[in-house]
Protein backbone atom coordinates (compact mmCIF):
# COMPACT_ATOMS: atom_id res chain seq x y z
CA UNK A 1 0.00 0.00 0.00
CA UNK A 2 2.47 2.57 1.16
CA UNK A 3 5.00 1.76 -1.51
CA UNK A 4 2.65 2.92 -4.23
CA UNK A 5 2.12 6.20 -2.42
CA UNK A 6 5.84 6.68 -2.05
CA UNK A 7 6.35 6.40 -5.76
CA UNK A 8 3.52 8.70 -6.68
CA UNK A 9 4.35 12.34 -7.26
CA UNK A 10 1.81 14.38 -5.30
CA UNK A 11 -0.29 16.63 -7.50
CA UNK A 12 0.96 20.15 -7.82
CA UNK A 13 3.71 19.65 -5.29
CA UNK A 14 6.56 22.06 -5.91
CA UNK A 15 9.87 20.31 -6.39
CA UNK A 16 11.78 21.49 -3.38
CA UNK A 17 9.02 21.89 -0.77
CA UNK A 18 9.80 19.78 2.30
CA UNK A 19 6.51 20.96 3.79
CA UNK A 20 3.65 22.50 1.84
CA UNK A 21 0.70 23.77 3.85
CA UNK A 22 -2.46 24.97 2.17
CA UNK A 23 -5.28 26.72 3.93
CA UNK A 24 -5.25 24.51 7.04
CA UNK A 25 -8.21 25.06 9.35
CA UNK A 26 -8.68 23.58 12.81
CA UNK A 27 -11.26 24.25 15.48
CA UNK A 28 -12.03 22.68 18.82
CA UNK A 29 -15.14 22.36 20.92
CA UNK A 30 -18.84 22.06 20.29
CA UNK A 31 -20.97 24.29 18.09
CA UNK A 32 -21.77 26.53 21.01
CA UNK A 33 -18.28 27.39 22.06
CA UNK A 34 -15.77 26.77 19.33
CA UNK A 35 -12.20 27.84 19.52
CA UNK A 36 -10.68 28.65 16.14
CA UNK A 37 -7.16 27.31 16.53
CA UNK A 38 -6.09 27.71 12.88
CA UNK A 39 -7.96 29.94 10.45
CA UNK A 40 -6.58 29.07 7.04
CA UNK A 41 -2.83 28.79 7.31
CA UNK A 42 -0.66 28.43 4.18
CA UNK A 43 3.10 28.38 3.78
CA UNK A 44 5.92 26.34 2.33
CA UNK A 45 9.17 25.15 3.82
CA UNK A 46 12.08 24.38 1.51
CA UNK A 47 14.31 21.37 1.88
CA UNK A 48 17.13 21.95 4.33
CA UNK A 49 15.60 25.13 5.66
CA UNK A 50 15.49 26.24 9.29
CA UNK A 51 11.94 27.54 9.50
CA UNK A 52 10.62 29.31 12.61
CA UNK A 53 6.98 29.54 13.64
CA UNK A 54 6.92 32.49 15.97
CA UNK A 55 4.03 33.55 18.12
CA UNK A 56 2.62 33.66 21.66
CA UNK A 57 0.86 30.86 23.54
CA UNK A 58 -2.53 30.09 22.05
CA UNK A 59 -1.55 31.30 18.58
CA UNK A 60 -1.99 27.81 17.09
CA UNK A 61 1.62 26.60 16.91
CA UNK A 62 1.05 23.26 18.61
CA UNK A 63 -2.13 22.48 16.62
CA UNK A 64 -0.21 23.14 13.43
CA UNK A 65 2.66 20.85 14.48
CA UNK A 66 0.32 18.08 15.55
CA UNK A 67 -1.47 18.27 12.20
CA UNK A 68 1.78 18.19 10.22
CA UNK A 69 3.08 15.23 12.24
CA UNK A 70 -0.25 13.42 11.54
CA UNK A 71 -1.31 13.30 15.18
CA UNK A 72 -4.37 15.46 14.56
CA UNK A 73 -6.69 15.80 11.59
CA UNK A 74 -7.36 19.24 10.16
CA UNK A 75 -10.95 20.42 9.66
CA UNK A 76 -10.03 21.94 6.33
CA UNK A 77 -7.16 22.45 3.93
CA UNK A 78 -4.34 20.12 3.02
CA UNK A 79 -0.67 19.64 3.63
CA UNK A 80 2.19 17.64 2.23
CA UNK A 81 5.22 16.64 4.27
CA UNK A 82 8.23 15.23 2.45
CA UNK A 83 6.03 14.46 -0.55
CA UNK A 84 3.26 12.71 1.41
CA UNK A 85 -0.28 13.81 2.09
CA UNK A 86 -0.81 14.26 5.85
CA UNK A 87 -4.17 12.44 5.80
CA UNK A 88 -3.82 9.69 3.23
CA UNK A 89 -0.15 8.89 3.71
CA UNK A 90 0.24 9.42 7.41
CA UNK A 91 2.13 6.17 7.90
CA UNK A 92 4.88 7.22 5.51
CA UNK A 93 5.18 10.59 7.20
CA UNK A 94 5.54 9.07 10.64
CA UNK A 95 8.61 7.14 9.46
CA UNK A 96 10.24 10.18 7.98
CA UNK A 97 9.72 12.95 10.50
CA UNK A 98 11.00 13.54 14.00
CA UNK A 99 8.82 15.31 16.54
CA UNK A 100 9.79 16.81 19.85
CA UNK A 101 6.64 17.95 21.62
CA UNK A 102 6.62 20.96 23.93
CA UNK A 103 5.94 18.86 26.97
CA UNK A 104 8.59 16.30 27.95
CA UNK A 105 7.08 13.03 26.79
CA UNK A 106 9.68 10.35 27.09
CA UNK A 107 9.30 7.45 29.51
CA UNK A 108 10.25 8.84 32.91
CA UNK A 109 10.79 5.40 34.42
CA UNK A 110 13.09 4.17 31.69
CA UNK A 111 16.75 5.11 31.78
CA UNK A 112 18.37 7.45 29.30
CA UNK A 113 19.81 4.54 27.32
CA UNK A 114 16.53 2.59 27.45
CA UNK A 115 14.55 5.52 26.07
CA UNK A 116 16.93 5.92 23.17
CA UNK A 117 16.97 2.17 22.53
CA UNK A 118 13.17 2.11 22.61
CA UNK A 119 12.79 4.84 20.00
CA UNK A 120 15.45 3.27 17.78
CA UNK A 121 13.67 -0.09 17.97
CA UNK A 122 10.18 1.13 17.15
CA UNK A 123 11.61 2.81 14.08
CA UNK A 124 13.31 -0.43 13.10
CA UNK A 125 16.81 0.86 13.46
CA UNK A 126 19.64 0.74 15.98
CA UNK A 127 21.48 3.37 17.96
CA UNK A 128 24.74 2.32 16.29
CA UNK A 129 23.37 2.85 12.80
CA UNK A 130 22.59 6.52 13.32
CA UNK A 131 24.93 7.36 16.16
CA UNK A 132 26.87 9.87 14.05
CA UNK A 133 23.79 12.07 13.80
CA UNK A 134 23.19 12.34 17.55
CA UNK A 135 26.77 12.01 18.73
CA UNK A 136 27.36 15.68 19.55
CA UNK A 137 24.13 15.91 21.55
CA UNK A 138 23.98 12.47 23.13
CA UNK A 139 27.61 12.45 24.22
CA UNK A 140 26.75 15.31 26.61
CA UNK A 141 24.35 13.08 28.55
CA UNK A 142 25.91 9.69 27.89
CA UNK A 143 27.61 9.55 31.27
CA UNK A 144 24.12 9.54 32.82
CA UNK A 145 22.82 6.78 30.58
CA UNK A 146 21.85 4.54 33.50
CA UNK A 147 19.80 7.33 35.10
CA UNK A 148 16.03 7.33 34.78
CA UNK A 149 14.74 10.03 32.45
CA UNK A 150 12.46 11.41 35.18
CA UNK A 151 15.53 12.20 37.31
CA UNK A 152 17.29 14.32 34.69
CA UNK A 153 17.63 18.09 34.86
CA UNK A 154 15.63 20.21 32.42
CA UNK A 155 18.57 20.78 30.09
CA UNK A 156 19.46 17.09 30.01
CA UNK A 157 15.85 16.03 29.37
CA UNK A 158 15.84 18.36 26.40
CA UNK A 159 18.99 16.78 24.99
CA UNK A 160 17.60 13.28 25.47
CA UNK A 161 14.30 14.23 23.82
CA UNK A 162 16.18 15.68 20.86
CA UNK A 163 18.33 12.54 20.58
CA UNK A 164 15.20 10.34 20.61
CA UNK A 165 13.54 12.52 17.95
CA UNK A 166 16.63 12.09 15.74
CA UNK A 167 17.55 8.45 16.21
CA UNK A 168 15.68 7.25 13.11
CA UNK A 169 17.39 9.91 10.97
CA UNK A 170 14.30 11.93 10.08
CA UNK A 171 14.17 14.06 6.94
CA UNK A 172 12.06 16.73 8.59
CA UNK A 173 12.34 17.62 12.27
CA UNK A 174 9.49 19.32 14.17
CA UNK A 175 10.44 21.01 17.43
CA UNK A 176 7.56 22.50 19.39
CA UNK A 177 8.80 25.26 21.69
CA UNK A 178 12.06 23.59 22.65
CA UNK A 179 13.32 26.73 24.40
CA UNK A 180 10.23 27.87 26.31
CA UNK A 181 10.96 28.62 29.95
CA UNK A 182 14.65 28.00 29.34
CA UNK A 183 17.20 30.60 30.37
CA UNK A 184 19.22 32.64 27.90
CA UNK A 185 22.37 30.53 28.20
CA UNK A 186 20.66 27.18 27.59
CA UNK A 187 18.67 28.71 24.74
CA UNK A 188 21.90 29.72 23.00
CA UNK A 189 23.31 26.21 23.41
CA UNK A 190 20.15 24.65 21.99
CA UNK A 191 20.24 26.85 18.90
CA UNK A 192 23.87 25.91 18.35
CA UNK A 193 22.81 22.25 18.29
CA UNK A 194 20.10 23.05 15.75
CA UNK A 195 22.58 24.80 13.49
CA UNK A 196 24.69 21.65 13.40
CA UNK A 197 21.66 19.52 12.49
CA UNK A 198 20.77 21.92 9.71
CA UNK A 199 24.31 21.59 8.39
CA UNK A 200 23.62 17.85 8.04
CA UNK A 201 20.75 18.62 5.67
CA UNK A 202 17.79 18.11 7.98
CA UNK A 203 14.80 20.38 7.39
CA UNK A 204 13.82 21.92 10.71
CA UNK A 205 10.51 23.48 11.74
CA UNK A 206 10.83 25.07 15.15
CA UNK A 207 8.25 27.04 17.08
CA UNK A 208 9.01 29.61 19.74
CA UNK A 209 7.34 32.42 21.66
CA UNK A 210 10.67 34.29 21.85
CA UNK A 211 10.78 36.94 19.13
CA UNK A 212 14.53 37.36 19.44
CA UNK A 213 15.04 33.80 18.16
CA UNK A 214 13.64 34.78 14.73
CA UNK A 215 17.05 35.98 13.61
CA UNK A 216 18.41 32.45 14.00
CA UNK A 217 16.03 31.06 11.34
CA UNK A 218 16.34 31.19 7.55
CA UNK A 219 12.68 32.16 7.29
CA UNK A 220 9.92 32.67 9.80
CA UNK A 221 6.15 32.66 9.94
CA UNK A 222 4.70 35.06 12.50
CA UNK A 223 1.49 33.61 13.91
CA UNK A 224 -1.22 35.11 16.10
CA UNK A 225 -4.79 33.95 16.75
CA UNK A 226 -4.53 31.09 14.26
CA UNK A 227 -3.48 33.33 11.40
CA UNK A 228 -0.13 34.02 9.82
CA UNK A 229 0.80 37.68 10.00
CA UNK A 230 3.79 37.34 7.70
CA UNK A 231 6.07 34.67 6.16
CA UNK A 232 9.52 35.73 5.02
CA UNK A 233 13.17 35.99 5.95
CA UNK A 234 13.68 37.95 9.17
CA UNK A 235 15.54 40.62 7.16
CA UNK A 236 12.67 41.00 4.69
CA UNK A 237 10.07 41.28 7.46
CA UNK A 238 12.14 44.01 9.05
CA UNK A 239 12.55 45.64 5.62
CA UNK A 240 8.78 45.82 5.22
CA UNK A 241 8.38 47.91 8.36
CA UNK A 242 7.39 51.25 6.94
CA UNK A 243 7.26 53.75 9.76
CA UNK A 244 9.95 55.88 11.38
CA UNK A 245 11.01 54.20 14.62
CA UNK A 246 12.81 55.96 17.45
CA UNK A 247 14.29 54.84 20.74
CA UNK A 248 13.86 57.30 23.56
CA UNK A 249 15.01 57.51 27.14
CA UNK A 250 14.50 60.12 29.85
CA UNK A 251 14.48 60.44 33.63
CA UNK A 252 10.86 59.47 34.18
CA UNK A 253 10.09 56.64 31.83
CA UNK A 254 6.48 55.96 32.85
CA UNK A 255 5.50 59.63 32.56
CA UNK A 256 7.41 59.88 29.28
CA UNK A 257 5.35 57.05 27.82
CA UNK A 258 2.06 58.59 28.94
CA UNK A 259 3.02 62.04 27.64
CA UNK A 260 4.16 60.73 24.27
CA UNK A 261 0.92 58.85 23.74
CA UNK A 262 -0.81 62.23 23.71
CA UNK A 263 1.47 63.63 21.01
CA UNK A 264 -0.27 63.80 17.64
CA UNK A 265 2.58 62.46 15.51
CA UNK A 266 3.04 59.40 17.71
CA UNK A 267 1.38 56.24 16.51
CA UNK A 268 2.56 54.03 19.32
CA UNK A 269 4.90 54.14 22.28
CA UNK A 270 5.85 51.10 24.30
CA UNK A 271 8.64 50.06 26.65
CA UNK A 272 11.49 48.10 25.14
CA UNK A 273 14.21 47.30 27.63
CA UNK A 274 16.11 50.37 28.67
CA UNK A 275 14.32 52.59 26.11
CA UNK A 276 10.81 53.22 24.89
CA UNK A 277 10.22 52.54 21.24
CA UNK A 278 8.37 55.33 19.55
CA UNK A 279 6.50 54.63 16.32
CA UNK A 280 6.06 57.95 14.50
CA UNK A 281 3.76 58.95 11.68
CA UNK A 282 5.55 59.46 8.38
CA UNK A 283 6.74 63.02 7.98
CA UNK A 284 7.01 63.85 11.69
CA UNK A 285 9.40 66.70 12.48
CA UNK A 286 12.22 66.09 14.90
CA UNK A 287 12.40 69.71 16.13
CA UNK A 288 8.71 69.60 17.02
CA UNK A 289 9.17 66.38 18.95
CA UNK A 290 12.12 67.95 20.76
CA UNK A 291 10.14 70.98 21.81
CA UNK A 292 7.22 68.78 22.88
CA UNK A 293 9.63 66.88 25.14
CA UNK A 294 11.01 70.16 26.53
CA UNK A 295 7.51 71.49 27.22
CA UNK A 296 6.72 68.38 29.22
CA UNK A 297 9.87 68.58 31.26
CA UNK A 298 11.77 65.72 29.71
CA UNK A 299 14.87 67.88 29.38
CA UNK A 300 17.71 65.47 28.93
CA UNK A 301 15.75 63.02 26.78
CA UNK A 302 17.95 60.87 24.60
CA UNK A 303 16.40 60.20 21.16
CA UNK A 304 17.76 58.25 18.21
CA UNK A 305 16.43 56.58 15.07
CA UNK A 306 16.67 52.79 15.17
CA UNK A 307 16.13 49.73 13.00
CA UNK A 308 13.06 47.76 14.07
CA UNK A 309 13.52 44.23 15.31
CA UNK A 310 11.11 41.30 14.83
CA UNK A 311 9.21 42.16 17.99
CA UNK A 312 8.51 45.69 16.68
CA UNK A 313 7.31 44.15 13.42
CA UNK A 314 5.15 41.60 15.23
CA UNK A 315 3.49 44.31 17.30
CA UNK A 316 2.87 46.49 14.26
CA UNK A 317 1.32 43.55 12.39
CA UNK A 318 -0.78 42.59 15.43
CA UNK A 319 -2.23 46.07 15.68
CA UNK A 320 -3.05 46.29 11.98
Amino acid sequence: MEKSFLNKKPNGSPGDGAVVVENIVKHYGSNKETVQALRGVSFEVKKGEMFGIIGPDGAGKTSLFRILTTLLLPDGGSAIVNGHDIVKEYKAIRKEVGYMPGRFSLYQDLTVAENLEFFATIFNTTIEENYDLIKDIYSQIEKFKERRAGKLSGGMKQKLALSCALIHRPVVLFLDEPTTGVDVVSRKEFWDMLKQLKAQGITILVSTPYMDEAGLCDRVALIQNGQLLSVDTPQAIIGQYNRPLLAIKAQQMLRLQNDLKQYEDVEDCYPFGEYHHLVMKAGYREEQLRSFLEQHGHHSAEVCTIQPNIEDCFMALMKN
Partner: protein
Amino acid sequence: MSSDYIITAEHLTKKFGDFKAVDDITFNVHKGEIFGFLGANGAGKTTAMRMLCGLSIPTEGKATVAGFDVYRQTEDIKKNIGYMSQKFSLYEDLTIRENIRFYAGIYGKSNAFIKEKTARLLKQLHLEQEANKLVGSLPLGWKQKLAFSVAIFHEPQIVFLDEPTGGVDPVTRREFWNMIYEAAEVGITVFVTTHYMDEAEYCDRISIMVDGRVEALGSPGELKRSMNAASMDEVFLKLARKATRSAD
Protein backbone atom coordinates in the same frame (compact mmCIF):
# COMPACT_ATOMS: atom_id res chain seq x y z
CA MET B 1 17.27 46.34 60.29
CA SER B 2 15.73 49.35 58.68
CA SER B 3 11.95 49.46 58.51
CA ASP B 4 12.30 50.72 54.95
CA TYR B 5 12.86 47.11 53.93
CA ILE B 6 10.05 44.71 53.11
CA ILE B 7 12.40 41.78 52.59
CA THR B 8 15.58 41.21 54.50
CA ALA B 9 17.66 38.11 53.91
CA GLU B 10 20.95 37.36 55.68
CA HIS B 11 23.05 34.32 54.90
CA LEU B 12 19.89 32.54 53.85
CA THR B 13 20.67 28.92 52.95
CA LYS B 14 18.69 25.86 51.96
CA LYS B 15 20.24 22.44 51.69
CA PHE B 16 18.69 19.28 50.32
CA GLY B 17 21.01 16.60 51.68
CA ASP B 18 24.49 17.72 50.62
CA PHE B 19 23.14 19.94 47.86
CA LYS B 20 23.05 23.68 48.62
CA ALA B 21 20.13 24.86 46.50
CA VAL B 22 20.43 28.32 48.03
CA ASP B 23 23.90 29.10 49.29
CA ASP B 24 24.29 31.94 51.77
CA ILE B 25 22.37 34.76 50.09
CA THR B 26 22.11 38.23 51.60
CA PHE B 27 19.98 41.00 50.15
CA ASN B 28 17.25 43.50 51.01
CA VAL B 29 14.23 44.72 49.07
CA HIS B 30 12.91 48.24 49.64
CA LYS B 31 9.23 48.94 50.16
CA GLY B 32 7.53 49.87 46.91
CA GLU B 33 10.39 48.63 44.78
CA ILE B 34 10.10 46.53 41.60
CA PHE B 35 12.72 43.88 42.27
CA GLY B 36 13.78 41.52 39.48
CA PHE B 37 14.97 38.13 40.67
CA LEU B 38 16.93 36.55 37.84
CA GLY B 39 19.01 33.46 37.35
CA ALA B 40 19.49 30.51 35.03
CA ASN B 41 17.33 27.41 35.38
CA GLY B 42 18.49 25.56 38.45
CA ALA B 43 20.26 28.55 40.00
CA GLY B 44 18.04 28.37 43.09
CA LYS B 45 15.41 31.06 42.40
CA THR B 46 12.39 28.89 43.08
CA THR B 47 13.83 27.52 46.32
CA ALA B 48 14.66 31.04 47.50
CA MET B 49 11.19 32.28 46.59
CA ARG B 50 9.56 29.37 48.41
CA MET B 51 11.43 30.30 51.58
CA LEU B 52 10.41 33.95 51.27
CA CYS B 53 6.77 32.95 50.77
CA GLY B 54 6.77 30.86 53.93
CA LEU B 55 6.46 27.57 52.06
CA SER B 56 9.87 26.15 52.90
CA ILE B 57 11.90 26.48 56.10
CA PRO B 58 15.51 27.58 55.57
CA THR B 59 18.41 25.42 56.72
CA GLU B 60 20.45 28.40 57.89
CA GLY B 61 20.41 32.17 57.95
CA LYS B 62 17.78 34.79 58.69
CA ALA B 63 15.02 36.41 56.68
CA THR B 64 11.94 38.52 57.20
CA VAL B 65 9.13 39.32 54.77
CA ALA B 66 6.75 42.16 55.55
CA GLY B 67 8.27 42.18 59.03
CA PHE B 68 7.57 38.50 59.69
CA ASP B 69 10.11 35.79 60.34
CA VAL B 70 10.42 33.03 57.73
CA TYR B 71 10.91 30.35 60.41
CA ARG B 72 8.26 31.19 62.97
CA GLN B 73 5.66 33.39 61.28
CA THR B 74 4.98 31.64 57.98
CA GLU B 75 1.20 32.00 58.31
CA ASP B 76 1.52 35.77 58.81
CA ILE B 77 3.73 35.93 55.74
CA LYS B 78 1.18 34.08 53.62
CA LYS B 79 -1.57 36.51 54.68
CA ASN B 80 0.50 39.54 53.79
CA ILE B 81 1.82 38.54 50.39
CA GLY B 82 0.30 37.89 47.00
CA TYR B 83 1.57 35.22 44.63
CA MET B 84 1.09 34.28 41.02
CA SER B 85 3.01 32.13 38.59
CA GLN B 86 2.84 31.23 34.94
CA LYS B 87 2.05 27.64 35.76
CA PHE B 88 -0.54 28.06 38.45
CA SER B 89 -2.75 31.06 38.80
CA LEU B 90 -6.50 30.63 38.51
CA TYR B 91 -8.99 27.76 38.45
CA GLU B 92 -9.90 27.19 34.82
CA ASP B 93 -13.22 25.55 35.64
CA LEU B 94 -14.44 28.36 37.83
CA THR B 95 -15.81 31.59 36.34
CA ILE B 96 -13.96 34.88 36.61
CA ARG B 97 -16.29 36.02 39.38
CA GLU B 98 -15.95 32.72 41.26
CA ASN B 99 -12.17 32.86 41.11
CA ILE B 100 -12.11 36.37 42.56
CA ARG B 101 -14.52 35.40 45.31
CA PHE B 102 -12.60 32.23 46.09
CA TYR B 103 -9.24 33.96 46.50
CA ALA B 104 -10.63 36.93 48.38
CA GLY B 105 -12.50 34.53 50.68
CA ILE B 106 -9.33 32.57 51.42
CA TYR B 107 -7.68 35.80 52.50
CA GLY B 108 -10.62 36.45 54.82
CA LYS B 109 -12.03 39.53 53.09
CA SER B 110 -15.58 40.59 53.99
CA ASN B 111 -18.48 40.13 51.59
CA ALA B 112 -18.94 43.88 51.33
CA PHE B 113 -15.27 44.39 50.44
CA ILE B 114 -15.38 41.59 47.88
CA LYS B 115 -18.56 42.85 46.26
CA GLU B 116 -17.45 46.44 45.95
CA LYS B 117 -13.94 45.64 44.78
CA THR B 118 -15.04 42.94 42.32
CA ALA B 119 -17.26 45.44 40.53
CA ARG B 120 -14.41 47.95 40.36
CA LEU B 121 -11.93 45.36 39.12
CA LEU B 122 -14.18 43.95 36.40
CA LYS B 123 -14.75 47.45 35.13
CA GLN B 124 -11.04 48.26 35.16
CA LEU B 125 -10.19 45.11 33.20
CA HIS B 126 -13.18 45.55 30.85
CA LEU B 127 -14.36 42.10 31.85
CA GLU B 128 -17.89 43.00 32.99
CA GLN B 129 -19.46 41.09 30.10
CA GLU B 130 -17.29 38.05 30.72
CA ALA B 131 -17.62 37.87 34.51
CA ASN B 132 -19.67 34.67 34.46
CA LYS B 133 -17.57 32.87 31.89
CA LEU B 134 -15.11 30.14 32.78
CA VAL B 135 -11.55 31.33 33.15
CA GLY B 136 -10.47 28.45 30.89
CA SER B 137 -12.13 30.18 27.94
CA LEU B 138 -10.04 33.37 28.28
CA PRO B 139 -6.97 34.01 26.10
CA LEU B 140 -3.68 33.54 27.99
CA GLY B 141 -2.86 37.23 28.18
CA TRP B 142 -6.21 38.00 29.79
CA LYS B 143 -5.79 35.15 32.22
CA GLN B 144 -2.44 36.50 33.32
CA LYS B 145 -3.76 40.03 33.77
CA LEU B 146 -6.70 38.70 35.76
CA ALA B 147 -4.41 36.43 37.81
CA PHE B 148 -2.26 39.40 38.73
CA SER B 149 -5.32 41.42 39.79
CA VAL B 150 -6.50 38.50 41.89
CA ALA B 151 -3.05 38.13 43.47
CA ILE B 152 -3.20 41.73 44.74
CA PHE B 153 -6.96 41.78 45.39
CA HIS B 154 -6.46 41.43 49.16
CA GLU B 155 -4.09 44.42 49.07
CA PRO B 156 -0.90 42.66 50.14
CA GLN B 157 2.27 44.58 50.95
CA ILE B 158 4.25 42.57 48.46
CA VAL B 159 3.45 40.37 45.49
CA PHE B 160 5.65 37.55 44.18
CA LEU B 161 5.41 36.95 40.42
CA ASP B 162 7.08 33.83 39.06
CA GLU B 163 7.55 34.22 35.30
CA PRO B 164 4.20 35.95 34.92
CA THR B 165 4.64 36.81 31.24
CA GLY B 166 6.03 33.57 29.80
CA GLY B 167 4.51 32.90 26.38
CA VAL B 168 2.38 36.06 26.46
CA ASP B 169 2.23 38.10 23.22
CA PRO B 170 4.40 41.23 23.07
CA VAL B 171 1.53 43.71 23.29
CA THR B 172 -0.16 42.04 26.26
CA ARG B 173 3.22 41.52 27.92
CA ARG B 174 3.65 45.28 28.00
CA GLU B 175 0.12 45.85 29.23
CA PHE B 176 0.96 43.45 32.03
CA TRP B 177 4.01 45.52 32.95
CA ASN B 178 1.87 48.65 33.04
CA MET B 179 -0.22 46.87 35.67
CA ILE B 180 2.97 46.13 37.61
CA TYR B 181 3.89 49.83 37.51
CA GLU B 182 0.41 50.81 38.73
CA ALA B 183 0.70 48.38 41.63
CA ALA B 184 4.11 49.79 42.53
CA GLU B 185 2.67 53.33 42.40
CA VAL B 186 0.17 52.49 45.15
CA GLY B 187 2.99 51.09 47.25
CA ILE B 188 2.87 47.36 46.57
CA THR B 189 6.35 45.88 46.35
CA VAL B 190 6.81 43.67 43.30
CA PHE B 191 9.21 40.71 43.38
CA VAL B 192 9.36 39.25 39.88
CA THR B 193 11.24 36.56 37.94
CA THR B 194 11.47 36.53 34.16
CA HIS B 195 13.41 35.03 31.28
CA TYR B 196 12.86 38.13 29.12
CA MET B 197 15.91 40.31 29.47
CA ASP B 198 14.09 43.42 28.21
CA GLU B 199 11.83 43.05 31.26
CA ALA B 200 14.86 43.08 33.54
CA GLU B 201 15.30 46.69 32.43
CA TYR B 202 11.88 47.61 33.81
CA CYS B 203 12.93 46.73 37.36
CA ASP B 204 14.32 49.24 39.86
CA ARG B 205 16.90 46.72 40.98
CA ILE B 206 17.87 43.22 39.96
CA SER B 207 19.64 40.33 41.55
CA ILE B 208 21.16 37.55 39.47
CA MET B 209 21.62 34.14 41.03
CA VAL B 210 24.29 31.70 39.84
CA ASP B 211 24.74 28.28 41.48
CA GLY B 212 22.69 29.18 44.55
CA ARG B 213 24.45 32.50 45.20
CA VAL B 214 23.56 36.09 44.43
CA GLU B 215 26.32 37.02 42.01
CA ALA B 216 25.14 40.51 41.14
CA LEU B 217 22.79 43.05 42.66
CA GLY B 218 21.98 46.57 41.55
CA SER B 219 20.00 48.73 39.15
CA PRO B 220 20.12 47.67 35.49
CA GLY B 221 22.34 50.68 34.77
CA GLU B 222 24.76 49.85 37.57
CA LEU B 223 25.05 46.23 36.51
CA LYS B 224 25.73 47.12 32.89
CA ARG B 225 28.37 49.65 33.89
CA SER B 226 30.12 47.42 36.39
CA MET B 227 30.20 44.46 34.02
CA ASN B 228 31.05 46.60 31.03
CA ALA B 229 28.08 45.23 29.10
CA ALA B 230 25.87 46.89 26.50
CA SER B 231 22.66 45.12 27.51
CA MET B 232 21.15 43.08 30.31
CA ASP B 233 21.35 40.11 27.99
CA GLU B 234 25.10 40.46 28.00
CA VAL B 235 25.24 40.93 31.79
CA PHE B 236 23.22 37.76 32.25
CA LEU B 237 25.31 35.74 29.82
CA LYS B 238 28.58 36.86 31.39
CA LEU B 239 27.40 35.83 34.83
CA ALA B 240 25.47 32.68 33.98
CA ARG B 241 28.35 31.25 31.96
CA LYS B 242 30.28 30.98 35.22
CA ALA B 243 27.77 28.45 36.45
CA THR B 244 29.17 25.02 37.13
CA ARG B 245 26.06 23.21 38.13
CA SER B 246 23.54 22.01 35.57
CA ALA B 247 20.03 23.31 34.99
CA ASP B 248 17.15 22.42 37.33
